[in-house]
């Protein structure tokens, strides 16, 4: 069966450190992978998209890697801040970008 797995346990880190979140998938062959941020009671907000032929993508303090051999994406937030505390979701495409399936998310807590 198809699975998208994100660590269900919250990640607690100290301000200023790098947060690394993992997204593993099975029985998907995504051409695109996305990462979103979701705050309580709000809709997810798009952060980054990476294509299957891209190994790494950066945006300000964010970095995403995409390893289609390992079937894994890593999401990094450098110099983390308390304002980065939220749930982070990964999503994989199917049907050539016509639909995306989401993982259940990992909650990040950045402590001052």
């Amino acid at each position, binding site marked *: 069966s198809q699975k998208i797995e994100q660590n269900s346990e919250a990640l607690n880190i100290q301000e200023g450190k790098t947060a690394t979140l993992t997204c593993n998938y099975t029985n998907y062959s995504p051409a695109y992978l996305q990462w979103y941020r979701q705050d309580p009671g*709000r809709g*997810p907000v*798009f952060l980054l*998209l990476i294509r299957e032929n891209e190994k790494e993508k950066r945006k300000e303090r964010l970095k995403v890697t995409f390893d289609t051999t390992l079937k894994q994406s890593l999401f990094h937030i450098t110099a983390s801040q308390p304002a980065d505390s939220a749930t982070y979701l990964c*999503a994989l495409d199917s049907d050539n970008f016509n639909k*995306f399936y*989401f*993982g*259940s*998310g990992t909650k990040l807590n950045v402590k001052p």
Partner: protein
Amino acid sequence: SQTIHQWPATLVQPVGSPLSLECTVEGTSNPNLYWYRQAAGRGLQLLFYSVGIGQISSEVPQNLSASRPQDRQFILSSKKLLLSDSGFYLCAWSVKGLGYTFGSGTRLTVV
């Protein structure tokens, strides 16, 4: 700029009552449109998606239905709500190569 409107923000409905949630998009043409549902503490479940007017694909068998009567309007409906229909409903749009833009969501409680 592109915006997405979704309403109402919260809704409490009795079991067996009908449902209609509306989503409209501004500032873009021929977007892909989506309805997702999120149960408490869970991920987003894709319910329906549409690549054009009148074109609806259903992901999960259920008592919900969707319609796209206009290019930038997407409606989620039910004739008779069940308790299990409770959740956070999110509408989203996308254009190929770009991330989704989600609406603010509707918190539906079926009592």
